[in-house]
């Protein structure tokens, strides 16, 4: 379980004044949990993810994974980035196997495991391709396979589908649910799409900026319905999905209006 306890972050602005980016955020991601963070730009969701990944120290508060304090990046916490960070001098399979190489696993075994993971994301035929020969959606699938390779406890995903067109995006959401159902990893997923957030998570947190904080939490079950029935259209057009979507939209807009009024 990943536990965030009263995480607070201040950045230094250009003029040196502290900027309150994250205000006492507490959050538990249980084993097998799929937590989605939703919010407008600047609401601190990426700051929270960077702190979970160990890229950013906290000003105060703590983050622990299975009881161990997060003190820096480690392979127990896999990260999928918004911008793909594949290495162009390695093939797709070598990129997926990178974490295994760092762990000292032999060439043959890591290639086999890379092929298995590429199969999981439907790219087994592209093992020998160069990353720049793939489309944006395919590159993000490679990124997911690469993050899964060292068998992390949790997958941290920072708007991984933000740059994709909406058709590819829906296919990627369904693929991610399959991966999650198959591996049962904990997932922390950032998005600014309300529909994506509702469809994917078992738990949804809505965040609001200045300072970044959690303003609402929901337990969701649409993702379980999809894992069972595999009918994404039926879920997204169901009345309870639409009702919740409007409720969350109202929360986001209300917070946005309050923020603008406060300025």
């Amino acid at each position: 379980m990943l536990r965030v306890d009263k995480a607070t972050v201040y950045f230094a602005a250009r003029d040196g004044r502290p900027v309150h980016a994250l205000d006492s955020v507490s959050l538990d991601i249980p084993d097998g949990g799929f937590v989605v963070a939703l919010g407008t730009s600047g609401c601190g969701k990426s700051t929270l993810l960077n702190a979970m990944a160990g890229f950013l120290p906290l000003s105060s508060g703590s983050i622990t994974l299975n009881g161990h304090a997060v003190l820096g990046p480690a392979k127990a916490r896999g990260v999928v980035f918004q911008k793909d960070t594949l290495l162009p001098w390695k093939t797709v399979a070598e990129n997926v196997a990178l974490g295994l190489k760092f762990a000292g696993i032999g060439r043959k075994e890591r290639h086999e495991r890379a092929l298995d993971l590429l199969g999981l994301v439907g790219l087994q035929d592209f093992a020998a391709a160069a990353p720049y020969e793939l489309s944006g959606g395919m590159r993000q699938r490679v990124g997911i396979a690469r993050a899964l390779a060292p068998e992390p406890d949790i997958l941290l995903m920072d708007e991984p589908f933000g740059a994709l067109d909406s058709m590819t995006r829906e296919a990627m959401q369904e693929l991610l649910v399959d991966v999650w159902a198959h591996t049962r990893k904990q997932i922390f997923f950032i998005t600014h799409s309300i529909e994506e957030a509702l469809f994917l998570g078992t738990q949804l947190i809505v965040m609001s900026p200045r300072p970044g904080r959690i303003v609402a939490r929901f337990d969701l079950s649409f993702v379980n319905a999809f894992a069972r029935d595999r009918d994404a259209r039926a879920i997204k057009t169901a009345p309870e999905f639409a009702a919740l979507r409007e409720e969350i939209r109202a929360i986001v807009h209300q917070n946005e209006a309050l923020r603008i009024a406060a300025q």
Partner: protein
Amino acid sequence: MTDIVAGAAAEEAQTPEAPPRVVKMRGFGIGERSTLPISLTTGVIIVAAWWGASEARLVPHLFLPTPREVVNAAISFYQDGYANASMWEHIGASLMRILTAAAIAIALGTPIGLLMGLSRWTKGVFDTPIEFYWPLPPLAYLPLMIIWLGIGELSKITLLTMAMFAPIALSAQAGVRSVSIERVHAALSLGATRFQLLREIVLPSALPEILTGIRIALAVGWGTLVAAELIAATRGIGHFIMSASQFLATDFVFVGIGIIAACAFAFSFAMRLIERWLVPWKGQS
């Protein structure tokens, strides 16, 4: 709906011969068409002007030999050598110096430059001497090299190594700065140690800039080489040019210049091949 599609298909079928007019975005700058014919024509015009001016004696013969004389001088140099050494011995001596110096400069400059990009201490220590001596013309400190290290190979190779070290180290340092923080974060969250990060991420990311630095270093090297051989040498293309000029043998000077140009061009071409082989992804990401 179906009718419209069928109609469009029938219309298309009626004119199967008409080739489509392929279009693309209007460009800017020189475009994609080869500049080779223009360059070749320019070369031919320059040689023709040279030939015309020298054969017509528009310029004193001592200043500008005819192409025929230069070819004869080249043949004589090839067959009989010059100043007690054959042509290959002169070229070999120069190549040996520049390649030895390049090997030392690459072996020292790459790791030191990478460390300068990664460690505050290394940067602090090496910045001062490099920034001090790098802008100096090598000819300015050549006398010191000769006084300290003698007139043998050691002083020349040291001079060349110093001239070539700085651009390689500085470009390696710039290469480290160009590594994206996301790639570093990705590698660290995949469990990379500091050394693995350096070898798998930082070095390949910096490689294009290091290769550019080596190209600049080789160009600097040729300039410095001739200067070094002008002063203290018994062999080498620079020495060959120098001693030919003392006899006012401008045709041999032309031959020497031609040989240096050919060598420098070959080096530059080889670097381009190496770049294509080592960094095929350049410009792709």
